[in-house]
């Protein structure tokens, strides 16, 4: 019996080993897959956008807020994406204002203060939060958070709260927010989405600081908070910066959540609760309904290129920042 098994095992072994060369070739090919992938993405998006690139009035594209891709017969279309860019950056900005302190704070707590079971639980909860799909976040923004925010930012005309809202640019009208899905809702949802990423990356960065740093600080009489403030933050600075940048990248590129939660309104926001529209939401909302090959279709691909370049730039930059730190630590 044992002899039989041995023989079988040997045969199987030989069969798979005979494939060593082809498998190695396959592995090398697959190693290139990510390069191929990113090149293909750029190529195909650019291929679809290319006929429009020389024709597009780029100055108009980046400075005008007049987005009329499907004009009435006889009128020229107007592709002014300024309001979309502003919408993207405004939501991202609000998201970062909320997400960076919360994310860094939570990361510091998990990495330096929490102990044992509590730490593990928090890490698992954060990981689960990161897994919630963006459409669900959008749904939460639309159905749960939107009504709450609309409730808070509503006042009778002439009331004190209404005047405060107008004075501090919380709302454009004294009656408050016109709809629940707006800049603030979108920003909060994006913040909630990017916080788990920021937390886990910053926690990695904090953990990467050698323990000798902490021990040295403690030996000098610093307590935990002082260690965090004066030793860990400077030491992990680049890692934390990279975490925030990746959070920003995620916020810029997020689609379904902002599609549902920001209000589809092509305008420059004047107040915190104005509805806006982002580049991603515009692509998602309009691409399904354009005629393939039309100018509008190609301009949407150009928006895709803008997004692609922005997020890739952010990612590569943060990668370089982290790599730079590793090199510095090694030398």
């Amino acid at each position, binding site marked *: 019996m044992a002899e039989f098994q041995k023989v079988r095992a040997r045969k199987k072994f030989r069969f798979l080993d005979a494939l060593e060369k082809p498998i190695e070739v396959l592995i090398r090919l697959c190693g290139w897959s990510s390069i191929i992938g990113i090149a293909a993405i750029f190529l195909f998006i650019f291929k679809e956008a290319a006929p429009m690139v020389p024709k597009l009035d780029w100055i108009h594209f980046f400075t005008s807020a*007049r987005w009329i891709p499907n004009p009435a017969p006889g009128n020229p279309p107007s592709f002014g994406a300024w309001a979309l860019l502003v919408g993207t950056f405004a939501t991202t900005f609000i998201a970062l204002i909320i997400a960076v302190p919360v994310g860094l704070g939570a990361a510091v707590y998990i990495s330096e203060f929490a102990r044992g079971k509590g730490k593990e639980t928090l890490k698992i909860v954060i990981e689960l939060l990161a897994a919630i799909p963006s459409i669900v976040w959008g749904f939460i923004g639309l159905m749960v958070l939107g009504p709450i925010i609309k409730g808070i930012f509503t006042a009778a005309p002439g009331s004190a709260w209404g005047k405060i809202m107008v004075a501090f640019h919380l709302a454009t009208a*004294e*009656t408050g927010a*016109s709809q629940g899905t707006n800049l603030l809702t979108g920003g909060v949802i994006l913040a909630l989405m990017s916080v788990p990423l920021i937390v886990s990356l910053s926690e990695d960065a904090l953990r990467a600081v050698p323990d000798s740093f902490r021990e040295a600080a403690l030996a000098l009489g610093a307590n935990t908070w002082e260690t965090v403030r004066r030793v860990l933050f400077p030491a992990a600075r680049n890692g934390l910066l990279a975490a925030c940048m990746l959070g920003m990248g995620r916020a810029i590129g997020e689609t379904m959540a902002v*599609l549902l939660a920001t209000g589809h309104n092509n305008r420059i926001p004047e107040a915190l609760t104005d509805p806006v529209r982002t580049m991603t939401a515009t692509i998602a909302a309009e691409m399904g309904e354009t005629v393939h090959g039309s100018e509008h279709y190609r301009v949407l691909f150009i928006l895709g290129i803008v997004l692609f370049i922005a997020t890739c730039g952010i990612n590569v930059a943060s990668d370089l920042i982290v790599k730079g730190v590793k090199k510095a630590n090694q030398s």
Partner: protein
Amino acid sequence: MKHTTPLHRRTLPPNLVGSDSTPSLTLRSDRKRNFRDAVERVLTRSWTTCLSITVAALTGCGQKESTDPGAAGGQRPVVITQKPVEIRVKGSDTMVQLATGWSEAYRKVKSNVFVNADGGGTGTGFAALQNNTCDICDASREIKKEEIEKTKTVTGKDVKEFVVAYDALAVYAHPSNPINEISIEELREIWAENGAVTSWEQINPAIKGKIALFGRQNNSGTYDYFREHICGQTSAGKQRELRGGISEMNGSAEVVENVSKTPLALGYSGMGYKTPDVKWLKVSSKKGEPAVEPGTDVARSGKYPIARKLYLYTAGEPAGEVKAYIDWILSPEGQKIVEKEGFVPLK
């Protein structure tokens, strides 16, 4: 970690490779294996088995998936005796509600006909018609000349048009709004680009505040139709565009939903989307003329100023099941569904 000698980069001499007595290299634990050990063994050792099961399962699906839908008839349960036929419908979002209603009701008429109704917008529907990826195109506007020509050049067939229902575009407002009627001229100044009216005081002093506008996204037939019939023309004789700063919703239902939640809202959408939480404004063609509430009769007779036809288009004369389906839609039974979904039947 520092590797001074990258050992794993070395190629081993050929005489050392694959000697005959190569033992099984997985570290063995002792005999008393607990459950966890067994599970891990299954996971780690039998990955080839897992792979083959997956592949087998998928080839199983693959076989099903690669068979022609028409040929699969024999395997279906006996409920369906005839050959199943699929009709692909695409187009207007306004009509997706209606199209799905028809498709579901038609299942009861002919159980072997599967009608897959999809939205996407009128423009998409025409594009699909040209590419032959749909049999019927729903349209909430009339086909444009270029689209007819494109279809002709691509498919070699003429487009055939069927008017299947009427739809009135209703102007929706919040129930708390004191305004009950509005004229087309006022609507024009509210909606058109560079229009003069931006706040409710300019219409009626009883209500104050900026108007929050809700409409449809810019490639829907509803948007097109509303622009054409409300915005009028500029001094240069060109069609006026809609203004910026309108919340352009992706679905007709979303417009109504938002209006119902916003006291200062004004929105346009098909009359089929009315809910108890919003109200229709009566519309008059001119200030001073009697205003009309959207409804079945006024839409059909043209008394209501913003009523339109809803169309189905096919490439070439429809035949077979597609023809039967369209005939059924035009029959009283099909028209009943139109009424049920909140649109206006032909008769």
